[in-house]
């Protein structure tokens, strides 16, 4: 699983491999020993012996996270594949406008579950993208019409590649070669 972490001014990519247990930060493998201290909502992180006491200051479910690390306070936001895609489509809520669903990361498009012209409900799974050895279901953010499908099952896609375009229920299907 791949996460985008915004810490203060800085953005970092944290990848957790599902089975092998490999952890990388910005592409660098990190040897880490982590303990949760539940009574304090704190985590103690040892990185090659270097010790970091990280306390979560913000109440559960508050965004952004406020973290205290070695006496420094920093605000953080985490997006995973799903939330990145959700964020991209957030504006589509109610699908009054045209919304482009893009690949949140490079990967293999394992399956397409919809066809152009279909009307999908909020939460309908539209495509399965395999990335970082995880299958990520891309779901519709709202009731809408699939006005364009830009990929085929089996395609390898780059991060950011256009996958599906949604529009209001009454919209016509878009031509194959459009403004994209």
């Amino acid at each position, binding site marked *: 699983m791949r996460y985008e972490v915004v810490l203060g001014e800085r953005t970092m990519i944290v990848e957790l491999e599902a089975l092998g*247990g490999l952890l990388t*930060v910005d592409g660098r493998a*990190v040897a880490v020993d982590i303990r949760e201290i539940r009574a304090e909502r704190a985590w103690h992180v040892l990185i090659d012996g270097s010790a970091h006491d990280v306390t979560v200051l913000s109440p559960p479910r508050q965004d952004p996270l406020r973290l205290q*690390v070695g006496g420094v306070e920093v605000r953080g936001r985490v997006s995973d594949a799903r939330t990145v895609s959700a964020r991209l489509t957030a504006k589509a809520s109610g699908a009054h406008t045209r919304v482009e669903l893009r690949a949140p990361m490079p990967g293999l498009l394992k399956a397409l579950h919809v066809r152009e012209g279909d009307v999908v409900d909020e939460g309908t799974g539209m495509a399965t993208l395999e990335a970082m050895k995880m299958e990520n279901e891309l779901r519709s953010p709202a009731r809408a019409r699939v006005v364009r499908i830009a990929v085929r099952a089996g395609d390898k896609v780059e991060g950011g590649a256009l996958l599906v375009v949604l529009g209001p229920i009454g919209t016509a299907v878009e031509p194959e070669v459009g403004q994209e």
Partner: protein
Amino acid sequence: MRLTKVLVANRGEIAVRVIRACRDVGLRSVAVYSEADRDALHVRLADEAYPIGPAPATQSYLRGDKLIAVARGAGCDAVHPGYGFLSENAGFAEAVAAAGLVFVGPPAAVQRRLGDKIAARRLARDAGVPVVGGTFEPVADLDAARGAAEQIGYPLILKPAGGGGGKGMRIVATAAGLADAWRGATGEAQSALGAPAAFVVEHFVGAARHVEVQFVADDHGAVVPLGERDCSIQRRHQKLIEETPGPSVDETLREGLFDAAVRVARAAGYRNAGTAEFLVAPDGSFTFLEVNTRLQVEHPITELVTGIDLVQLQLRLAAGEPLPFARADVRAHGAAIECRLTAEDPFAGFLPAAGTITVVREASGPGVRLDGALVPGMVVASEYDPLLAKLACWGVDRPAALARMRRALGEMVISGIPTTLPFHRATLGEPDFVAGRYDTGYITAHWPRETVLGEEAAVAAAIVAVLVSRSAASGAPSTTDPAATDPAVPGAWARAGRHEGLR
């Protein structure tokens, strides 16, 4: 007279502080609480506790009648007002005395002599203490202000004679701004005080340090200065950091300030503990500002360097005991600094923050003193002052005290609501502050500062952020394998991400 039981007419950390002093000298303590404070630490630590009304202070902690009724009902013989609320209300001091109770603080007459800025300025001037250039008569209209301004010169500051907390104050840079400033100041003062206010017009001293002298006076004519405190780290007249000795105060200036404080106190017929505030200009000259006729929030740093417990002493003085020391007996050892931990968000213009405190980890160890009322699960109510706790550190010298404060700030955790901790941590590492180069303009010039996170600390924070957001998303508590510690010699112990929680 001998006291036996004290009503603590306050809440939060200062109520806790007074209760502790009562316990230390063998007095019983009686707490009061509003509806918002039934679970507060001051209620839990007192010997007795009584409800006094709804959460708004006007219906509880400011209700002198209820406080006195509780004091009488519970058989108290004294009332300690703490600071804030009714501590500088001469009418309350009078009512307490009229009810046959001892008021722990200066009597009403002294409070009246010093509570009005014009009266206090005259008193100081007549006592031979330098006062900022300005008016000694109430200024009631724009014409009078204009006349005064011509004599005083710009920049100047307009202050309501009877106000406090910065309300109705205006700094005026040039004559062109006077009329507007006058309208703003008088309007604000009227709405704050409920009546047209008389004003003082004073020369405005920029780039000055705020230095104050703690003094104590007994009923037998003795007045002793206990030391100065530099309180220049302020925003909107609210102090955030205080230290003693003042980094800019040399022996000559100190003696000058002490003498001035004693002269003002004597002229006012002062009793109990008080603080004379001064502005110190870059050239070392100083002018009298005002006297706070109560305990100050920053009193612990004076206690740390002198070994004198000011609240115990207040109680003894209120009982009529003579001062147990003379001016020459008081010696300051080392240096002390205090950081006010308040429920304010330093990243959002110090906006007060209400909410629930979820976790508290208190700093402790050598040289660290925490005066607080922090309890995990406590609700910080928006009705009251945001002061949560005072963290004070002592060291053999200023660098030692600052080092301990940095350590203590690093250990301290308050979760759930924003606090001033990040401001303090940043300031204690900021070169100008560390060098002692600061004045009342410090915060404006130095805050906010960029947060600097080391590379590995950033990696650790990023990983934790991911774990926290995963567990929040799944709704399940986060898990790491508690058995996953590899006991091995250095070089081999760290295996990458073999933790259950990372899968």
